[in-house]
């Protein structure tokens, strides 16, 4: 069988290698992980070339991301990679939580219909990267330099001078902008001497990816204190290709070398799935999770995105998902700055918005990890109290924290946000929020909203208000054009607070809401767009 993990990406000689002066590139991305690739594809969709420097010759290996959240799927759909993720991945939205042998809680992450994307798709990170590499190749604008690595970095007044190592020796590149998407052990961060502070969780987790045929519903199963892992937790998830992810908390003192021995790991697998289970190991590893963040995501012409900027424990699947959202936030801003249509300070809002998102993710994952692996005796007593009460008390079920699964951050406090005339209505679509999907014609509303500024007229009446129709030309002819989309779909009206009266939304290229009004005024929309471009 062909395994995408066996694909070896060849190193190719680049003319930059022996150039007399460092070759100049508008954008150099360090790292071809999910975040670097998503950034490059988004920039290419806007017409920009980029160079990606990647140390490895293969896709990500080992046990890494498997759960891709709805918002990430929507972003990847905008980038043309949504369908392969859906087709190959395992779609799910339900989960169960067990305490000892009893089920204490079941959840449904997407109880409503009318969305193109499901709550979650499980797919091994190497597939996610594989589809991104294929999409990147199709653009013809992305030059991935496999088997090369960044070794030196110097910021000058006109750019960033990089020293790149290759099989033929080192060479230099001059970049206008560098996106450091080089992961949790970021070289760029180290070269710039930037502290990456936070906490290390003491507990260790054994992660086994196994291959087996097992007919059971696709759900996330989480155990607290199960008979097969007394006093600790465990997690079971399905992946593509009949792979399963098993995650066992093994304690602070566990002997790492002994735990990862197949015969010992196999005992744990049998404990969870039964003595007669027929399986093969794909990968066994042991982790101690971290929770850290860079103080600033923008340092002049160097922008940090993904794990290089923030690292979280995986409970809640917030690592890769938030990294892809970094890319989503960064690409349109970099595009407009590169084209001279927005001031450089628009990139400060990248830090502002995504650092707030990182804080939210750090808060959730830290709380989850403390619930799953209590750090004091009293913390464990309260945790067990919540679990025991959950068997009969509905409120306690809501306190059970086996990971608060990734949802998009609403940039509530962003300096880019404009007026909110709907105030307390349709809070899920308030300025700063990611736009909500709904059926649209024969497709989906989100398909009409990405990539450019969009004015969205939502109202039960299929007619666009005359004032909006009149302003169409004016909005389309701005330096950064605003196109118009109209919907009268009932689900859209409900989600956007337009059931009783129409509403007008200004949506950014990353599909986040910039401002919204009850009464339309072209001048007000123009002012809000200027604000969203950091022009005012």
């Amino acid at each position, binding site marked *: 069988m062909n395994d995408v993990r066996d694909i070896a990406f060849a190193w190719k000689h680049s003319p930059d290698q022996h150039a007399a002066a460092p070759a100049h590139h508008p954008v150099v991305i360090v790292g071809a992980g999910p975040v670097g690739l998503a950034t490059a594809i988004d920039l290419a969709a806007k017409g920009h070339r980029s160079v990606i420097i990647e140390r490895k010759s293969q896709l990500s290996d080992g046990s890494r991301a498997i759960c891709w959240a709805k918002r990430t799927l929507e972003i990847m759909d905008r980038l043309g990679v949504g369908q392969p993720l859906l087709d190959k991945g395992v779609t799910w939205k339900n989960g169960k939580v067990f305490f000892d042998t009893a089920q204490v809680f079941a959840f449904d992450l997407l109880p409503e219909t009318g969305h193109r994307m499901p709550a979650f798709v499980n797919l091994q990170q190497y597939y996610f990267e594989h589809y991104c590499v294929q999409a990147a190749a199709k653009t013809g604008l992305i030059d991935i330099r496999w088997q090369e690595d960044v070794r030196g970095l110097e910021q000058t007044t006109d750019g960033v001078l990089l020293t790149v190592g290759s099989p033929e020796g080192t060479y230099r590149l001059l970049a206008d902008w560098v996106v450091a998407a080089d992961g949790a052990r970021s070289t760029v961060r180290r070269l710039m001497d930037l502290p990456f502070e936070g906490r290390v969780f003491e507990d260790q987790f054994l992660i086994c990816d196994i291959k087996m045929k097992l007919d059971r519903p696709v759900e996330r199963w989480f155990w607290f204190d199960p008979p097969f892992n007394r006093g600790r937790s465990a997690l079971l998830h399905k992946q593509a290709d009949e792979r399963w992810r098993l995650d066992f908390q093994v304690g602070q003192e566990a002997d790492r070398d002994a735990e990862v021995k197949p015969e010992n790991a196999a005992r744990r697998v049998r404990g969870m799935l039964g003595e007669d289970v027929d399986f093969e190991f794909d990968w066994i590893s042991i982790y101690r999770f971290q929770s850290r963040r860079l103080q600033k995501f923008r340092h002049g012409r160097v922008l940090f995105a993904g794990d290089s900027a923030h690292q979280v424990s995986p409970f809640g699947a917030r690592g890769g998902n938030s990294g892809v959202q970094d890319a989503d936030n960064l690409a349109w801003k970099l595009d407009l700055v590169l084209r001279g249509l927005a001031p450089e300070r628009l990139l400060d809002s990248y830090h502002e918005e995504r650092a707030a998102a990182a804080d939210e993710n750090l808060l959730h994952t830290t709380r989850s990890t403390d619930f799953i692996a209590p750090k004091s005796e*009293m913390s464990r*007593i*309260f945790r*067990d*109290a*919540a679990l*025991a*009460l959950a068997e009969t*008390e509905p*409120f*306690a079920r809501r*306190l059970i924290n086996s990971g608060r699964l990734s949802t998009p951050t609403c940039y509530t406090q962003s300096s880019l946000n404009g007026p909110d005339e709907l105030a307390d209505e349709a809070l899920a679509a308030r300025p700063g929020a990611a736009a909500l999907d709904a059926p649209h014609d024969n497709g989906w509303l989100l398909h009409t909203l990405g990539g450019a500024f969009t004015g969205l007229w939502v109202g039960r009446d299929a007619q666009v208000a005359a004032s909006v129709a009149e302003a169409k030309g004016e909005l389309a002819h701005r330096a950064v054009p605003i196109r118009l989309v109209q919907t009268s779909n009932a689900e859209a009206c409900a989600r956007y607070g337009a059931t009783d009266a129409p509403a007008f939304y200004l949506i950014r290229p990353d599909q986040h809401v910039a401002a919204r009004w009850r009464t339309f005024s072209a001048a007000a929309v123009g002012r809000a767009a200027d604000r969203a471009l950091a022009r005012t």
Partner: protein
Amino acid sequence: MALERELKIDDGDGVYAAIIDAHQGLSLEQSAALNARLVLLLANHIGDGTVIREALAKARASLTR
């Protein structure tokens, strides 16, 4: 709403005794487990995070007396 500081329970002595009675015959460990359940049930009943945080701060401060 601020944390109530005057006695609000209609039968203070009786409820106090009921709390003590609930711990009858329990080890310290079992009592800790009971208290944790009680705190969660009551915190949910109060519902107001500000009041609960104020109560936590008061309780903590009174430890240093």
